[in-house]
């Protein structure tokens, strides 16, 4: 089954970067403009990987991340951030609560997005095959 990737970011330039990076990757890529839409899309979406921004309107990254983790504790989540101090406290709380995520520093290049996505999803595929 084709793997699905969810990009949650309010910036069009960032969403376009992911689109350009993953257009020929063979993965299905879906986008959300804010945390609320992202959480709603995640609910029924059966995604294998999530990239999430921190600073977003309506629902910010840390809140959306917590809600995603409530639905799926194991899915790989990459927080894509410019390393602003603003959300560090909240991210620390999320980590202390046991919700795992990785950090990706902006600006992220096309090659890095593709390489990272492939390595995570290929590893996921291998694991599924091993378990079956």
């Amino acid at each position: 089954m084709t793997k699905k990737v969810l990009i949650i970011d309010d910036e069009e330039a960032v969403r376009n970067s992911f689109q350009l990076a993953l257009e020929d990757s063979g993965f299905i890529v879906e986008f959300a403009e804010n945390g609320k839409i992202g959480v709603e899309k995640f609910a029924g979406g059966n995604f294998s990987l999530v990239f999430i921004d921190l600073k977003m309107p309506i629902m910010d990254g840390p809140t959306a991340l917590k809600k995603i983790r409530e639905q799926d504790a194991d899915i790989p989540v990459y927080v894509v951030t410019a390393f602003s101090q603003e959300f560090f406290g909240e991210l620390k709380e999320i980590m202390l609560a046991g919700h795992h995520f990785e950090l990706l520093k902006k600006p992220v290049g096309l090659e890095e997005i593709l390489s990272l996505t492939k390595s995570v999803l290929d590893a996921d595929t291998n694991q599924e095959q091993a378990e079956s």
Partner: protein
Amino acid sequence: MKTSKQKIFILFLISTAIASILPFLLNVLGVDFGVTKTMLSPDALAAIPPGEMVDVMHGQLRGSFVHTLLEWSAFTVAIFTVMLAFLHFSTHKDIVTLIVGMTLFFSGCMDAFHTLAANRLISAVADNRDLIPFTWAICRVFNAAIMIAGVTLVLTKRRILQTNMNVLLGVNVIFALVAYGIIHLCATSQNLPQTQFPNSLITRPYDVVPLVLFLFAGLYLYPKLYRKTPNIFTFSLIISAIPEVVVEMHMAFGSSALFDNNFNIAHFLKIIAYVVPLCGLGIEYLFTNDRLKRNQIELKERTAIMIQAEKMSSVGTMAAGVSHELNNPLMGIINYVDYCLVRTDESDKRHGILKNALKESKRCASIIGDLLMFSRTGKIDDDAVALDCSEILDKVISLNNFRISKESIEVTRHTPDIPLRTVKVKGNQIQQVFVNLLGNAVDALENSSVKKLDIHLFEENNLLTVEFSDSGTGIDPEVMDNLFDPFVTSKEAGKGTGLGLSISRTIIENHGGKITCANNMQGGASFTVTLPFTDP
């Protein structure tokens, strides 16, 4: 080595002591300060030619004139003292100087009354031969008593006096009323007790009372005040007791007649006794003014530093905000250009242009990254906590995994078998330093034939040491000495802003550590960070 203040104290003490015993020493050498003159009989006065009468009368009254000069000098000094005390109080709000200044003034007023009465310039009923010695004695007792009362009030009721001006005023009114009462009593009494006993051992027994009082004040009360409020003025009160005691000794055991040697010495030393607190107050005023000026200068400098720090903080906050906002569109630009670049043939002229556009965009990203780092350097959002730096290092390496694998860099971590102790650090700041050093090492290895990066973590001389050692081309010796200065970079033009190492140094030094660099003997360069452990 004595400070200048201690030298002043000693000089003050020595000069007062010398002034106090000098007249006695001069007496020993044969100098007589007496101005006694036998009164001419009425017949002798009548026989004086009219042209010589004024000179003869002046001669007869010479003792009185000298007495008036000496007493009035003391009163003048008391006036200057109280004026200076008010000036000192107006600027420094020190109740001690005000109370003591006022008591000295009231003492001076009593001495002035004594002088006016002695010169018959105010009406007095009693005979001058009893009036002058009696008012002298009563003035000396009053002088000692009011000083003791004033200092005792300051020692016991300082807070009330400091905060309640009405109480302060009330105290001074009481002092004034007591002084006036004594003056009135002396002026209106027909008969005043005999106070001079020329043939006795104690020629003026009434002067023993102020002698004892001044000894008590000088040996106990004034030192107590000095211990509570140590300054040159309170010290001067202690040493003023020296001439006061010597005055009383000259009078009690020496003077047997008006205007004799001991009488005049005592009156002279009384001036010294007033001058000493005046000098003490004057020096204290200069010292406190000087201290005030220095405090004001320091306050100005600190305010300027604070304003500058706030400005920088605002600049930092703005830099953070702007940089953060720029990152998103910049990510778009970099990736749009990159996308077009990989789909443009190398022979196409636009390929070169797109390549340059990508390079410049990445340079912008680097500047923004440094600005964000700069904006975070001074922030204290996170507290310093005991952290394991090897964990921070692991995180930094994983963040750079993409670049490390893309450049095919062989990264080796060298850590001891036993876990290292924690260091008290602001985790995010130390992470920034490691990000900067690792990033620099990766940049250095970009065009290197051998791409190795060794990261050593160990304990040495009770310090945590983290060393990033690359196999690159090393650092140009010309920039080595200034490498940690702002805007100095060893990277090619357009690659670095020159802020990263400067900021890293600031962060490490703020943590009590050091950061150094050196070229490796086998090639490449090493950057070494040392940090003190949490538990030494």
